[in-house]
């Protein structure tokens, strides 16, 4: 009798477990009911999330059936996490896409086309979008992601450290027409020698993220690969000159801290840093600072900007609603709100006056010279289909360059030998 009771209890437990497991694999609620759009992004900044949630709340007021849930994913593993979610059939409805991954997402068909929806509404002012900002997010004349953040690179300067080392300020050199890479490297080396702090730091490069060096080699007219994406640019004379200059600045002149050495500009550890203007929020009252454009190189003046886009996944069950929300979020009115954190890709809004309202830390002159001119005249950072594999291959092949006795030309030829098969695909 007791044995029968035990058996019944066990059978009931197994049946319950099986039932619960079956319930757990349930699907989305029936269509026609309320919809919650999942929006993946790589920011967890409370102020940015508050702004986005505010825009979503405004949308919900006009579309009571649609809510938006923002899902923050750490930036370091962002694309890998997103890919894993797609592989598991759990892709979000909308997502931020990192600029380097743009060609993969655009060319694969993973993103839904946006042009028809965005251009249909005259209030959206689709023609106001800057062509050089939408270029990498388009394919075959169709826009697949909106470049919500277009952030140019500039040089932040610790003027206190320069004064301590008896150096002129970049502003003085700009006024004298002498703001170029030779002057910058000379100032950085003298400041490092005179203060014991670092001279120049290319932020986020860390001798791994080589694509950040486009902010340097573009001054020599060098490119990682040609415009067609098929020809390697690392073994070209312009790249060799740029990299030789960098190598000398690091190992001979000590103008830049070497591999494995950290120096945070915003903590006061270096005289200058090249980074995006969105990092201005890290500035504290520790020292006097300035923001100036990238110096000119042998190839003249230039600008570089980094980007992130926002797109709708074509695998989403709510493509129409997600695209409609994206149009609402990136329309002229909300684009102005987003400008507090993300420089807009709209010609009419890319003015020093507009940006000054959202960026009180930066002066109108800084905004005009670095942000407006940087986006209008600049080029986006390098991107390519299969960028992640190319990125890792270049990183591994460039590692020998970061030794004091490196043969620059030989290393750069080695980079091309490694990545040419990937570029040919």
């Amino acid at each position, binding site marked *: 009798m007791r044995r029968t009771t035990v058996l019944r209890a066990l059978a009931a437990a197994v049946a319950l477990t099986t039932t619960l497991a079956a319930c757990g694999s349930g699907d989305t609620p029936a269509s026609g009911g309320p919809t919650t759009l999942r929006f993946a992004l790589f920011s967890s900044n409370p102020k940015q999330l508050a702004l986005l949630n505010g825009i979503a709340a405004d949308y919900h007021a006009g579309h009571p059936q649609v809510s938006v849930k923002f899902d923050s994913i750490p930036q370091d593993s962002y694309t*890998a996490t997103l890919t894993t979610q797609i*592989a598991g059939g759990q892709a979000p409805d909308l997502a931020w896409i990192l600029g380097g991954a743009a060609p993969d997402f655009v060319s694969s068909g993973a993103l839904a086309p946006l042009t028809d929806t965005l251009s249909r509404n005259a209030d959206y002012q689709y023609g106001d979008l800057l062509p050089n900002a939408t270029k990498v997010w388009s394919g075959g004349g169709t826009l697949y992601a909106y470049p919500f953040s277009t952030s140019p690179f500039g040089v932040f300067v610790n003027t206190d450290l320069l004064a301590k080392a008896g150096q002129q300020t970049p502003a003085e050199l700009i006024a004298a027409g002498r703001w170029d890479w030779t002057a910058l490297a000379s100032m950085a080396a003298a400041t490092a020698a005179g203060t014991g702090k670092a001279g120049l730091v290319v932020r986020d490069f860390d001798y791994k993220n080589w694509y950040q060096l486009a902010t340097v080699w573009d001054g020599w007219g060098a490119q990682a690969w040609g415009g067609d994406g098929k020809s390697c640019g690392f073994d070209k004379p312009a790249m060799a000159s740029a990299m030789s200059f960098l190598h000398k600045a690091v190992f001979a002149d000590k103008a830049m801290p070497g*591999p*494995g050495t950290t120096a945070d500009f915003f903590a006061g550890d270096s005289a200058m840093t090249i980074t995006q203007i969105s990092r201005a929020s890290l500035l504290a009252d520790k020292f006097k600072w300035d923001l100036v454009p990238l110096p000119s190189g042998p190839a003249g003046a230039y600008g570089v900007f980094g980007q992130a886009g926002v797109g709708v996944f074509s695998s989403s069950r709510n493509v129409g609603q997600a695209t409609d929300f994206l149009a609402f979020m990136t329309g002229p009115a909300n684009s102005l709100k987003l400008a507090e954190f993300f420089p807009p890709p709209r010609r009419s809004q890319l003015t020093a006056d507009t940006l000054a309202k959202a960026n009180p830390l930066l002066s109108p002159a800084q905004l005009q010279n670095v942000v407006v001119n940087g986006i209008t005249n600049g080029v986006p950072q390098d991107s390519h289909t299969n960028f*992640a594999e190319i990125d890792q291959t270049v990183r591994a092949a460039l590692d*020998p360059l*970061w030794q004091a006795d490196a043969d620059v030309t030989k290393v750069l030829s080695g980079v091309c030998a490694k990545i040419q098969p990937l570029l040919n695909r």
Partner: protein
Amino acid sequence: MSAHPPPRDEVPGVAGRPRRRWWTARRVDSLAGYLFIAPQVLGSIVFVLVPLGMVFYYSLHEWNVLAGTFHFVGLDNYRQLAEDPNTPSVLRATAFFSAGLVVLDLALALLLAVLLNQKIRGIAFFRLLFFSPVVVSVVAWSIVWGFLLQDNGGVNGILHAIGIDGPNWLRQGGTSIVSIILVQVFKNVGLNMVLFLAAMQGVPPQLHEAAQLDGAGAWTRFWRITMPMISPTILLASIITIAGSLQMFAQVSVLTQGGPGNATNVLVYYLYQQAFQFHHFGYGATLAVLLFGIVLALTLVQWRMRRKWVMYEV
């Protein structure tokens, strides 16, 4: 002759044999046993065997996650594995890392266990000290060591203070993999130390007393009594350590991302790169099959060789 069959108890050979119940006590016990292990078996099937089978299945396909395409390619991924120029360097780094880690970890754990197997006041503090890294998050541990091993980090600061110009630990091919091995040994040695310590304390003291009376010295007693008595634990620790060393990921991801060059690009990190960074899920699954084969082969070899050096089995 009668048209009816005879009564059952009149049939020759059947008479007197009662009808047997199918639901016997033995069968009820068996069923109860199976039901008790059912959750574990179901868990193993759903979370181990099915994913394992799926990995083999995926390894025969090309899966472009972004494009949503999934094609059968037969053994193409295995051919790519044979022709991949990175395969030799990845296997070399994996073998070097695994061998270095296993030898250092087991030797140091054994040494610590011997030193801490003493009845001295305050010995528990030292046991706690060496065991505590085991419970620390591996990512946090790696990040801290990342700072310490920088060119201008704490380790080189100490070396500089005593007049030694330390290397750039994580940026040079030779020192980077050794650094990762040491970081992992310091992290994990406490676990094997505790296993060895428990095994040593299970050795009957009479054996040592008898050997001592017979004139055996400390080394002889350790080699002839302690080692044979703890050999099953050494086998267990070596299997766990080898399998773990082949699957180490977080330290490489945090400290070097496989660099400099491919010096620390071990198999499991390369698998991650191919599948989750480069979106080659089919080829990533092929690398997972290779990793599974290596772990299985090494475990079987150890299991077969146990007869030669494990003195008894529990």
